[in-house]
C-alpha cells in the first residue's frame, strides 16, 4: 500500500517510526541547531515551520526534520518499506561548520547527503581567486545526488552556514532494486530534475538578465523553495548569503549587489534585516524575475 508522509494538515496523527529516542547524539545535534527537531523525536506533530525569535526582535522560519520529510511527499507516494528507509535516514545527522568543503570537484557522487538545516552551495573556483557559485542547497535539498552511474562532482560543495546533514543513500536505490522502490526512484529523479532546472535558471540569469532581474530571479527561487518548507510571505526567513556570496552567484561585484538590493528594497519588493529577508510584493518580484508558469511547476 502506498502511504504518504503525514502532512501538516493532519496534525493530530502521530509520526510513525520515529528515530529511536536512545540516539542521544542525533537528538543533541538536531535539537541544538533546530528546536523543532525535538518534536520529531517525541513523535508530536508541530507546525511545519517554527518561528525563532531573534535578538533583534525579528522572526525567522526554521524548518525541522519533519518538515524536510514532508517536502518529499511532493515527489512521490511511498510504500511502507520505502517510508521506513526514508525515516531511517534521520538517525545519524552530522554537523558541518560554515566554509567546510563537503564534496570536492571531481570526487565521485557516492554519498548523497540530505540537508536538514542550514545552507550549502556548489561553486567553481578559479586559480586567480575568483569564484562562480552554481547553485544553493537549502533544507530538504540533496547534495551529491546523481542517477548516472560513476558520476563525479562537476563543482565543489561547501557549507554556507551551520549545516546539519544526514546520509541520503536510500534515495538512490541500486540499479537492480529500483523496481522494488519505485517511490524512492521517482523521488530521486524528481530531485535531480529540480537541480537541472535550477542550473538552467542560473544560465538564463547569467546569460541574459540584468542585475535587478538576476537578483529578483535568485531571491524568488529561494523563496519558492522555502515556501515548500512552510515559509509564508508575511514572515522573514533566514538569509545567510552575504553580499559577496550573492555577487559570486550572480556574477556581480559586491558594490553592485549592494546597490541592486537597495533598489529592490526602495521599490518595496523585499525587506532585509540582520541576516533575514522578507518578500513584500511577490507578484512584482515574480514579474521582475520574468518567472514563467513552467517555473512554478518545477518549484
Amino acid at each position: 500500500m502506498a502511504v504518504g508522509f503525514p502532512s501538516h494538515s493532519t496534525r493530530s496523527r502521530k509520526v510513525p517510526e520515529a528515530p529511536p529516542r536512545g540516539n542521544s547524539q542525533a537528538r543533541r545535534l538536531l535539537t541544538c541547531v533546530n528546536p523543532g527537531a525535538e518534536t520529531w523525536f517525541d513523535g508530536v506533530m508541530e507546525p511545519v515551520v517554527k518561528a525563532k525569535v531573534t535578538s533583534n526582535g525579528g522572526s525567522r522560519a526554521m524548518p525541522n526534520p519533519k518538515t524536510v520529510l514532508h517536502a518529499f511527499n511532493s515527489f512521490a507516494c511511498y510504500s511502507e518499506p520505502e517510508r521506513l528507509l526514508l525515516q531511517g535516514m534521520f538517525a545519524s545527522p552530522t554537523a558541518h561548520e560554515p566554509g567546510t568543503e563537503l564534496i570536492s570537484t571531481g570526487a565521485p557522487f557516492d554519498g548523497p547527503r540530505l540537508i536538514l538545516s542550514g545552507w550549502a552551495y556548489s561553486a567553481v573556483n578559479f586559480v586567480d581567486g575568483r569564484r562562480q557559485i552554481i547553485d544553493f542547497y537549502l533544507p530538504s535539498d540533496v547534495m551529491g545526488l546523481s542517477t548516472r552511474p560513476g558520476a563525479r562532482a562537476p563543482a565543489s560543495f561547501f557549507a554556507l552556514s551551520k549545516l546539519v546533514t544526514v546520509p541520503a543513500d536510500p534515495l538512490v536505490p541500486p540499479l537492480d532494486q529500483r523496481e522494488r522502490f519505485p517511490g524512492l526512484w521517482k523521488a530521486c529523479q524528481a530531485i535531480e530534475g529540480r537541480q537541472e532546472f535550477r542550473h538552467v535558471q542560473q544560465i538564463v540569469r547569467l546569460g541574459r538578465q540584468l542585475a535587478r532581474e538576476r537578483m529578483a530571479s535568485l531571491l524568488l527561487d529561494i523563496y519558492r523553495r522555502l515556501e515548500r518548507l512552510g515559509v509564508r510571505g508575511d514572515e522573514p526567513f533566514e538569509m545567510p548569503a552575504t553580499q559577496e556570496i550573492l555577487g559570486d552567484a550572480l556574477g556581480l561585484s559586491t558594490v553592485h549587489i549592494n546597490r541592486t538590493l537597495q533598489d529592490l528594497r526602495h521599490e518595496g519588493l523585499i525587506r532585509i534585516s540582520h541576516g533575514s529577508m522578507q518578500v513584500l510584493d511577490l507578484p512584482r518580484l515574480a514579474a521582475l524575475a520574468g518567472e514563467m508558469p513552467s517555473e512554478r511547476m518545477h518549484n
Partner: protein
Amino acid sequence: MPRFFFHFRQLSDLTIDDCGCEFSSAEDAYLSAFRAAQEMWHELLIERQDPRCCSFEVADGEGNTLFVVPFTEVLDSCTRKSDRNPRRYAHLLHAALSNHQHAQRLRGEVSAELNIARSILAESIGLLAQLSKLE
C-alpha cells in the same frame, strides 16, 4: 572589517546607501566600486541613461566621504590601457632613439664650438699678456 557606504550620484540625485559593505581596506572598497561602475555602464546605457553623469561617493561609518569614483574613470582606464599598446611603445622608442641621436649630434657641435671658444680665449689671454709686457 570596516564598513564602507557607497552613495550613488546621478547628476543632482544622490541615493544614500544606508546598508554598506564590509571590505578589509579602502583600496578593496575602491576596486569593488570600480568594478561595479564597469558593470553598471552597460546597464545604464540599456536604460538610455548617461553613465558619465554617475559616480559613487564612498563614505566611512562616520559619514566622512573618503573618495569619489566617477564612472568616467572606467573610460580613463581604457585610455591608459591603449597607451600601453606595443605599437605605440615602438613609436615612442623610435622617437627616443631619434632624440638621443639628435642630442649626441648637438653635443658634438657644442663640444666643437667650445673648443673653438677655448682656443680663442687662450689666444686672447696670450695677446693680453704680450700687450701688458709692451706697456
